[in-house]
């Protein structure tokens, strides 16, 4: 993000230190990760030590320091989905995409994450891709599902 874009976001949040999480979430949502230079700039602008910002960036699940893929796959590992085989779906995805959970494919197409409980428990096992919920998943549905995404 450009410095002036960051300045705008900081202004919108009233230049408050306590808004740091919201500010970082804005950057994450636009850039798909938190670029190091952006964090250094925010540290300067808001006069928050870089150590504090790095701490926050690594504490919260919503933030990532590494670029996430164009399509984010969130496999629900909530208790109900786990009991219905959510773990197997995750492993199938790991095999198909050749990455582990928490990673992004080399071509930056997909990111694979796990999430706890989306509240669609009656549809389990469930995965959310780009905000769209796919329920009643079985291992054999995965390859064709992935093909739907460019």
């Amino acid at each position: 993000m450009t410095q002036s874009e960051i300045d705008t976001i900081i202004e919108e949040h009233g230049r408050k230190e306590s808004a740091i999480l919201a500010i970082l979430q804005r950057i994450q949502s636009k850039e798909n990760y938190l670029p190091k230079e952006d964090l250094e700039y925010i540290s300067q602008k808001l006069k928050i030590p870089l150590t504090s910002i790095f701490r926050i960036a690594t504490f919260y699940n919503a933030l990532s320091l590494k670029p996430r893929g164009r399509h984010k796959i969130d496999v629900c590992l909530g208790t109900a989905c786990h009991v219905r085989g959510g773990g197997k779906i995750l492993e199938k995805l790991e095999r198909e995409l050749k990455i582990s959970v928490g990673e992004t494919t080399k071509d930056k197409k997909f990111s694979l994450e796990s999430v706890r409980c989306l509240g669609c428990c009656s549809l389990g096992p469930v995965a959310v891709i780009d905000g769209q919920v796919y329920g009643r998943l079985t291992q054999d549905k995965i390859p064709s599902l992935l093909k739907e995404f460019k």
Partner: protein
Amino acid sequence: MKIRTKTDLEKIKERGIEILYPKGIKISVGMATCGISTGAQKVYETIQNEVEKSRLPIIINQTGCIGFCQREPVVDILEPGKPRVFYQEVTPEKAMRLVHEWIENRVIKDWLFFKMEDEEWIVDNKFWNYSIKQLPKGLDGAYIYRQIPFYNKQLKIALRNCGFINPDHIEEYIARGGYFPLYKALHEMKPEDIIEEVKRSGLRGRGGAGFPTGQKWESCRRAKGDIKYVLCNADEGDPGAYMDRSVLEGDPHSVIEGMIIGAYAIGAHEGFIYVRDEYPLAIKKLQTAIHQAEEFGLLGEDILGSGFSFKINLFRGGGAFVCGESTALMASIEGKVGEPRAKHIHTTESGLWDRPSNLNNVETWNNIPVIISRGSEWYSKIGTDKSKGTKVFSIVGKVNNTGLIEVPMGITLREIVYEIGGGIPEGKKFKAVQTGGPSGGCIPESLLDLPVDFDRLTEVGSMMGSGGMIVMDESTCMVDVAKYFMNFLKDESCGKCTSCREGTKRMHEILTEITEGRGKLEYLDLLEELGWVTAEASLCALGGTAPNPVLSTLRYFRDEYKEHIINRRCPAKVCRALLKYRILPEACTMCGRCAKVCPADAISGKRKTKKEEGIPFKIEEEKCIKCGMCFESCKFNAIEVQ
């Protein structure tokens, strides 16, 4: 327009009633997350297009979740003079048809969910009657809403409006009695009176700890300081629990109203609602509701002409379970990481920015307007001796009817699982019900007649928690469940305390050893010791309750642990390392499907064709990664799992 007087409020109520019960046909689609995830958006659009295209005199509407999430998408049709009819599992195709059938004064029996002849307005203590004058054809024999086992034993206080109103219309909330309790509180009661009422009602915190709400409010009111805060904990993090989400998506004003009343009683002028990052729809609904409340003068300066001012800020979480802990939540709002701090000085005295702060859960706040309106005496008659009122539970897992239910405290687990939940699917045997999320424990069959309330659940090694209830059957491995929760907790621990960080890590490590066939009997005692120190030596409730899943499964299912250790066997056939996949040569039809899908190339054999005999397929144990794909693909039940 800003509401200033009771007359203003009543005018809006009338307007709201007209919107809720219009003169023509109104079709509502359940559009909470459960609905949307099953395709309610397409259903809504289909009906919308059809109505526009055919120029039908129909109003289309969205509501929240009516609780029986399994049967979503749910569509209901309302027309003056007729019963209100609800359809279940509606698809876009079905939607088209049932709209047209309705116009012909017919219903499609097989797709029906239930019918309603009246609605309970619990805030106003009355029923809205549909004044039925005619019945559409095909409706005979349809269940009435309250007759359905799922709804029969429920008493909806917190869920009073969910599924009945459009959460984006404040007028509908007001129509069903909303914001009248606020008027009463601001104009007819003193702050001390309100606190007394809440105390007398016996309301205890619905977030999990069950602390008496009135007492909390009182200590916050008494605390020194001009600036105080009220906070709403909407960081519902228990996997399997989504009660708060439903309330926020379906009836956000109920929480806002509760907070305004609480703020007035305590003397706070600013509030925060901390919503979990993973709930985008709830955040959206809250934003709309807060904005509307401000427009109507229910938030801001001089609320309802009372002179009391209060504003609410929405704070979005960053994805951390530990932020559901009160001091961690406050640290997060302050712009820090969600690390809990010692509570020798309570947050009611020194909380957010070191000021007196009162934090309550979504469901707790939502109960307040009803208590103010109906009175503490009425409320305290519901529930048990020490646990008053109702509780919303999410009943999920291996049970026929999954969804959200609200029942009076004191109902037994058996009633919930069998009567409301409809029992275990596929005729399997009940094994346990997990309550309280990662802080709770598993309750076995022998304790199914336990009345559900705060203290009874804690006595048996579990806890009420936020209300998640996960039903498990014989195909659930309890050791695996304990491992699952430990995995969650060690990730979500903030990591500060040695006892929690290392304790959860080591418990997970040991459970992994056991589920992978490397367990030793002495591990069981070691787990109990680790559990003890994690709970006793850690700072906050995450560490304090972390051992519960392990300790409760050890208490009631010790034999299952022993089976994993001594015989290296998983009776529920879940723990992969202990399984053997085997193709039964007699049953194998040599279709070759399993070999095709095997990712490890572990299956060999020869396909039977018209020309060749074929050789029964066989799985090579060393190569098998136990993914289960062969098992899933075999259409002849020729693969057995040992």
